[in-house]
């Protein structure tokens, strides 16, 4: 594919729709169909045109798709819930655009559009930087964060075809919530799109009132950390009767008596915490769902809609102010952070080799470059060209992997929801 002029940014859509290699065109059109599904099959032209069009004007004046960031402790059912939401949205004809940020996950049971695993090789990160599993996740996320502006651009261009963007995060919740790259990612999303934080927690482990309050406290802390609309999602209600949790949320006395049945010294603390959190329950959406049988998904969507409205009135002004007033400052800061990050990564190991180099097409020279250019003393023009190449290859790599995956996905799903049957 030709290198496009500077002003135009590439995205997966471009690649999907423009790639003309006969061998891959079937698969690619399939990807497009899976991605775009019923609602937007008419939109078939080169999406470089769509970039210049006005933003979609359905529900209110959103300037982009609704971004849902799924966070939750390990084993809370994050992935299953993502799968459930995806299928619900597909059923409604508004398929989500899915981004996976967990570098160490196994193949997720839903079609992923952008996958961190396509960009960063987790195992390689462990090797190159000589890191353990945790450190490798943080580093992979850091590597990905250096590319996140491109992801943002892709999302921007997807507003025509996708109303929702789903982001699945690593199981280690603190890696996402309490790391530099996590804040870079959430902040840059929230500044541009209506963003909702979905905190997934499972009812089974919350039967213990202490664990319950501990979880709610953690959720509350995420509210303060991220300053985003938060939906507390109590998952797995198929496995256990959710009445107790509903009672505890709405009625402090019920919680207190459950607590008093335990004789531990922190009962006092937990009890006053619960009293403090009453306000939290009032202000925060909470829904009881089951990823397993789909219970409560309507409630969930209402909650999302409510949170989006909230974002418009409460959060958007804040982020806009942030954007307007501190644009230069935050940009500089982020650049610095990124630069620092890149520098760190560069000095402590060979970052390049951690990115996925499309192996099957060795020789096409599609390599993701991270920091070699910026470090060396290339002049601006050269850097620009390289930037373009870099973008192209980034998209191409993503696209290729997405194709490969969707192929697999349709294999798994039979001739899945999209009805695309162009497979040969």
């Amino acid at each position, binding site marked *: 594919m030709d290198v496009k002029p500077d002003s135009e940014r590439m995205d997966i859509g471009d690649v999907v729709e423009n790639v003309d290699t006969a061998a891959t065109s079937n698969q690619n059109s399939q990807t497009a169909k899976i991605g775009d599904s019923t609602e937007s099959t008419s939109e078939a032209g080169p999406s470089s045109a769509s970039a210049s069009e006005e933003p979609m004007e359905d529900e209110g004046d959103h300037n982009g798709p609704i971004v849902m960031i799924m966070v939750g402790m390990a084993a809370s059912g994050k992935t299953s819930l993502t799968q459930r939401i995806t299928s619900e949205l597909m059923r409604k004809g508004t398929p989500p655009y899915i981004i996976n940020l967990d570098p160490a996950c196994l193949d997720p049971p839903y079609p992923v559009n952008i996958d961190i695993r396509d960009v960063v090789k987790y195992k390689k990160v462990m090797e190159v930087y000589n890191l353990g599993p945790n450190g490798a996740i943080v580093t992979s996320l850091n590597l990905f964060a250096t590319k996140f502006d491109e992801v943002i651009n892709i999302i921007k261009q997807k507003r025509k075809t996708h109303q929702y963007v789903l982001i699945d995060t690593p199981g280690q919740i603190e890696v996402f919530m309490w790391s530099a790259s996590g804040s870079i990612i959430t902040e840059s999303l929230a500044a541009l799109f209506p963003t909702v934080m979905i905190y997934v927690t499972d009812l089974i482990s919350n039967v213990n009132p202490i664990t319950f309050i501990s979880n709610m406290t953690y959720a509350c802390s995420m509210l303060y*950390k991220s300053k985003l609309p938060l939906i507390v999602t109590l998952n797995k209600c198929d496995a256990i009767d959710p009445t107790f949790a509903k009672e505890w949320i709405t009625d402090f006395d019920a919680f207190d008596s459950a607590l008093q049945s335990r004789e531990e010294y922190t009962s006092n603390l937990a009890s006053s915490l619960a009293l403090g959190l009453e306000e939290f329950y009032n202000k925060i959406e909470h829904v009881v769902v089951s990823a397993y049988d789909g219970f409560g998904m309507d409630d969930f969507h209402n909650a999302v809609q409510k949170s989006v409205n909230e974002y418009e009135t409460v959060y958007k002004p804040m982020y806009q102010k942030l954007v307007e007033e501190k644009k230069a400052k935050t940009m500089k800061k982020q650049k610095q952070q990124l630069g620092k990050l890149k520098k760190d990564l560069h000095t402590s190991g060979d970052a390049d080799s951690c990115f996925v180099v499309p192996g099957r097409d060795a020789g096409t020279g599609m390599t993701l470059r991270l920091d070699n250019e910026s470090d060396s003393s290339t002049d601006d023009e050269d850097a620009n060209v390289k930037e373009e190449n870099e973008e192209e290859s980034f998209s191409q790599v993503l696209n290729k992997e997405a194709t490969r995956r969707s192929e697999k996905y349709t294999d798994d799903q039979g001739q899945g929801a999209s009805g695309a049957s162009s497979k040969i």
Partner: protein
Amino acid sequence: MRFAQIVMGPAGTGKSTYCGHLEKHAQATKRAIRIVNLDPAAEKFDYEPLADVRNLIQVEDVMEDEELKLGPNGALLYCMNYLMDNLEEWLLPEIGEEYDGDYIIFDCPGQIELYTHMDLMKRFVKQLDQWNFRVCGIFAMDAHFLTDGAKFIAGSLVALSTMVNLEIPHMNILTKMDLLGKRDRRNIERFLEPDAHDLLKEEAETPWNAKFLELSEALGKVLDDYSLVKFVPLDIRKSSNMENILLIADMVMGVSEDADVKVKDFEEPDPEEEQDRDLDREFSEYLGTLNVND
């Protein structure tokens, strides 16, 4: 009576660094403190562990196991479960028999769900209790993430959520103070003796703050009332910081009897333990020999 610090905190906050410096500090002040690594995913640490869980089980091995098919997180939980099942058989022989004033630091993994979600660490604490340990939880937080009022509340709440679940005396340390810029350091000083009410009032008036004003106040009240969530700064270049942390931990666990002013906030020691005066006296003498500027 033995004493133990359980060092917890998110990944990358400097738990192991803290332990490493604690070891050096202990050597310099001639104090017998030994460190046990309980993080099966630990990469490297700059201390000589008394025992290392990686000798028992390693996350990498579990991850590579064909039958289990676990990701990093699942593998870690598997390891921790395995460790908890083998405490008597493995850990007890490793840390050896009790002797007077035994002081052991446990360097724990960073997964927050171990503390808030699962009962693994609780089981560990109970086991230590049976082995006649007095335990103090050390929760490490990266100072970089606590530079404004809202983030401070977020951090406090994370600390609280582990605190409420583990039910042990608890103290929070702010790591990486040495890496902060001047302005951030000044900002953070406000949080060391926090008044949550004031902190939030200083924030600019945004719709967000207005919406959550009541919640912030309610939480601020809890934080204030219990005054449990205090942060102790740790600048690893300053040995006075380390000394301060050790001193507070000593007070919390009742290592020395004349310094137990704060102990009433926490779990009362058993009457039996209280009678163990000899040991306490010995430790207060011990403390006296340290150069404490308190």
